[in-house]
């Protein structure tokens, strides 16, 4: 929770238009936990005012390196992708309320879709003593990344793609559904595009499995002051707008009300 300057150590394209950037930030490396994000000021172009929220993919507490993974979708991420080793980034972080492990949790399923694969990797890195099974969905092979990293901490990794070019052809949630019909983990933890999250919500409800999901919403301050990052949390009859930046981005699945019109990109 601080504003500071982080140095870029590496910035490489790891899949189609998807970049992994490693920065040095002891503040983030030492205190971040899975599901949290950093809020990045875009350098060079003053016409872009807002910071960009990007989740933490991994931290290394020994050398203070922090990895983030981002897809180039607009002007801000385009500029980020052009930064070279030695560049300086003005960041805020770590921010947000991330994933947490309720008492007694032993067996978890990790579910990631597209860019949502990046943040959930941190779960496995940090809590590798749990019994982890991972479900990763991609558009296709050119967009897939870090499957090997998940293999390191997962009992098993299931992969699917929309076009069948890697793993099963079809939605990762139908794959998850099959597994839930035979085995119950203590907890599901997920991040991904809105349609995937909506399918997930139905599935975990059906099997009555506790599930934490990480949401995305357009942000301003990132620190809880401007109220622009609202998402509807509660039940259909009784809900409130909560802040994705400080109340989330991680919420209990059954409390998240998605209207289906929210934007997604990957």
């Amino acid at each position: 929770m601080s504003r500071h300057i982080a140095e870029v150590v590496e910035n490489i394209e790891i899949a189609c238009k998807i970049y992994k950037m490693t920065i040095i930030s002891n503040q983030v490396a030492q205190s971040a936990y899975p599901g949290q994000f950093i809020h990045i000021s875009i350098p060079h172009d003053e016409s872009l005012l807002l910071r960009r929220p990007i989740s933490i993919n991994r931290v290394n507490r020994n050398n203070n390196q922090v990895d983030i993974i981002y897809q180039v979708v607009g002007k801000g991420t385009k500029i980020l992708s052009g930064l070279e080793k030695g560049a300086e980034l003005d960041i805020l972080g770590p921010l947000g309320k991330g994933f947490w492990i309720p008492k007694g949790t032993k067996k978890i399923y990790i579910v990631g879709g597209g860019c949502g694969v990046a943040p959930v990797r941190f779960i496995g890195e940090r809590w590798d003593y749990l019994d982890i099974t991972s479900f990763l969905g991609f558009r296709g092979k050119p967009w897939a990344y870090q499957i090997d990293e998940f293999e390191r901490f997962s009992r098993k990794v299931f992969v699917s793609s929309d076009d069948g070019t890697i793993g099963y052809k079809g939605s990762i949630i139908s794959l998850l559904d099959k597994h839930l019909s035979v085995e119950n983990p203590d907890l599901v933890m997920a991040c991904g595009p809105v349609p995937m999250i909506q399918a997930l919500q139905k599935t975990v409800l059906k099997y009555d499995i506790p599930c934490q999901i990480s949401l995305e919403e357009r942000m301003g301050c990132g620190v809880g002051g401007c109220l622009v990052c609202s998402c509807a949390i509660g039940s259909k009859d009784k809900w409130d707008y909560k802040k994705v930046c400080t109340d989330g981005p991680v919420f209990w699945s059954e409390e998240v009300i998605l209207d289906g019109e929210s934007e997604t990109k990957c």
Partner: protein
Amino acid sequence: MENLKLNVNIAGVSFKNPIIAASGTFGFGVEYKEYIDLNHLGGISVTGLTLEPRKGNPPPRIAETPSGILNSVGLQNPGVDYFIDSILPKLKQYDTNIIANINGNTLDEYCHMATRLQQIDIDMLELNLSCPNVKQGGVSFGTDPEMVYSITKAVKEHSHQPLIVKLTPNVTDITEIAIAAQKGGGDAISLVNTFLGMAIDVKTRRPVLGNITGGLSGPAIKPLALRMVWQVSRAVEIPIIGMGGIMTGEDVVEFLLAGATAVSIGTANLVTPDSMVKILYDFKTYMHNNKVSSIDELIGGLIVKMPT
């Protein structure tokens, strides 16, 4: 830089420096306490309050535009009572002026809120007649001089604290509205609120904002805000709190030269939580480098040769 006179007086209230957090962009202040020492601020205008709690508008509530942002928060807030009971006590621990920004759907609601706040330990009231994201019968109060006059007058009768009237810039003639606020008994004017705008996503062919339109703020509007401050400063006697796109110490100087007595910082807080400290520092640096020992030399100090 230690001997600079930075304090200003607005309607009898002394501000240690001219930097005030703009309503709606700095929460209730306390959200920012880990990033900024609130004691260093001239004042804080809290998030727009309403009589009852309000949920606000559907997301997305923010869009980025060239050098600007559009927001459509729509006055999400926990209501004036919650503010008084649960938030103000925390805020009062800091040595800075507290301004309550009040919003109503009816004249009655405004008066009701003023009454409710009468005995409360806040420094000033800010009558927001200008939120573009909440409409009453399709037209916001602040565009009609007679409405502005009568609401100001009525609220003034119900309030003990000095009253700031915050104007919308979405009008043909801002001076007319400012004069109405002064006539109604307003003790100061703050301007500008946001300009009504819109952004469209060409991929989805939909508006970016859940509310379709939103209020434009940030550097994009600075030239418009500055012009309005200059016009209003020549039309009224009461002090002006200027705002609109201030991101640097030099921007503060521009608003003071145009006639503002103090300034508010809005969008800059969304960009970086400790912006106001940096802006104040840069402002002091400007004064130092330009051998300006007192802020009073800058206020209204624009040198103009009127065109013939």
